[in-house]
């Protein structure tokens, strides 16, 4: 087994030097990590699992990578090797990203971006890598399905002043402020995305399409009491029937309040609040504004 191990590692190195990532991973996968024939310590096992997962991820192969990351997850909690642990975290985040579990991926990317140490073992953690992790966190959050948890993560990222230096910041700001993203902005954002983040979904929308249309629908619901689907299509830069399809799904999933009048081809965005609650809100806003005026007067010594 020892000889087989050595040969496999050599061959894997050769494949890696040829950038034949999956072949290198397959070569290493053949190593029997659970063999009873010889003593293999957990560190070795963990190292191999993470190494194989990283190789598969070079080819965006989340399925095979996940198999080895799952194996590694039983060992990583006892591992003291920070480099390995960090590599495990990055693999895990990337697998979630590839599997379009964007919000979970965003949280892990964000966690990675907050590493304080700049040297772990003999691995230097450079600012670029952290910035990449932060940008990946922002991208995944924007692509995640709209909802309260995504709003919380958006708020965290928007308030993290490191984000203001990212190229993607203008998009983050508009998404956080629930503003409609116009086609040119979406196209700019699209250029930053990886292939799987623009992949076609079974319902014939791309991941990006769905995320952007959902976001823009929610933004429109903040601006309109009702709007015709033709106008909505023009506003969002998509065909009206696409807007209707996604809007109806969001209403069914209770991720947006409203109703669709198919005869008139109009969507009614119901205000979450009943009229009386709106009255309360308006009174609250009025009193707040009155206080602001009184504060301003106090500030000016009046």
């Amino acid at each position, binding site marked *: 087994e020892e000889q087989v191990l050595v040969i496999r590692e050599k061959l894997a190195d050769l494949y890696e030097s040829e950038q034949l990532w999956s072949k290198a991973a397959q070569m290493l996968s053949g190593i029997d990590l659970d063999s009873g024939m010889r003593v293999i310590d957990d560190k070795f096992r963990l190292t191999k699992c993470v190494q194989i997962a990283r190789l598969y991820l070079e080819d965006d192969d989340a399925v095979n990578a996940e198999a080895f990351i799952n194996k590694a997850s039983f060992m990583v909690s006892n591992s003291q090797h920070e480099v390995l642990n960090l590599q495990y975290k990055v693999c895990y985040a990337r697998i979630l990203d590839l599997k379009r579990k964007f919000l979970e991926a965003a949280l892990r990317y964000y966690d990675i971006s907050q590493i304080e140490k700049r040297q772990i073992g003999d691995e230097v953690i450079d600012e670029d890598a952290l910035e990449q992790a932060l940008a990946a966190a922002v991208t995944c959050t924007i692509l995640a399905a709209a909802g309260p948890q995504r709003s919380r993560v958006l708020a965290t990222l928007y308030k993290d002043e490191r984000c203001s230096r990212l190229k993607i910041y203008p998009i983050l700001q508009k998404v956080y402020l629930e503003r409609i993203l116009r086609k040119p902005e979406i196209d700019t954002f699209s250029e930053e995305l990886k292939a799987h983040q623009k992949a076609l979904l079974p319902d014939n929308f791309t991941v990006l399409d769905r995320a952007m249309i959902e976001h823009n629908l929610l933004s429109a619901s903040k*601006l309109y*009491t009702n709007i015709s689907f033709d106008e909505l299509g023009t*506003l969002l830069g998509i065909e009206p029937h696409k807007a209707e399809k996604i809007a109806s799904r969001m209403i069914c999933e209770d991720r947006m309040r409203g109703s669709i009048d198919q005869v008139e081809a109009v969507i009614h965005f119901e205000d979450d609040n009943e009229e009386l609650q709106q009255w309360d809100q308006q009174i609250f806003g009025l009193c707040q504004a009155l206080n602001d005026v009184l504060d301003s007067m106090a500030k000016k010594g009046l």
Partner: protein
Amino acid sequence: MDIEQKQEEIIQQFVNEASNVKASSLVTVIAQATSHPSLFAFSEILALPNVTQLQGTEHSIYLDLLRMFAHGTWSEYKRNAGDLPQLKPNQVLKLKQLTVLTLAEANKVLPYDVLMQELDVINVRELEDFLINECMYVGIVRGKLDQLRRCFQVQFAAGRDLRPGQLGSMIHTLSNWLSTSDNLLITIQDKIKWADTMSELDKKHKKEAEERMEEVKKTLS
């Protein structure tokens, strides 16, 4: 009120600039102020002595322009365009934004037809894009667009510079508000007193009823 906070610094900057320049340079300052994307208030600049001294000089049309931005609307500008300087696109944009504020002063529900006419806009999409991008997203108004009823329901609109004579009606409105609030508080206090009295009476009545019941029980036993 955050629009006021945002523009406070900008106002101060232009007041400082305008205070220290001669008439010919004032023209530039006025052009910059009426073009600045985040400035929607001009009375502080108008109040400066060397600005009011433009009256009757060769530059007085810039004083008129400043007054137009302080109190006027796009329609009013068009009616007097011959006597005023030519506007650059971002000045036109600003005057149209200010027009929405003036319209919002009079009504909380602005019909699309009125808005389209006042803003020289030819279709609903263009009007709504203007209201969304240049008004709501800039923070000078908040509200809801109602396409079916073709109107814009205003929930908040930033205040424009006061026109002469407006102060009186504001004081009148504030006095009304104050007396209405006072009356409301008095009414609420009366209601509370009434409720207390009623609950006392109820307690008394309940006590009497219980006493009577005890008596009857004693009699029976």
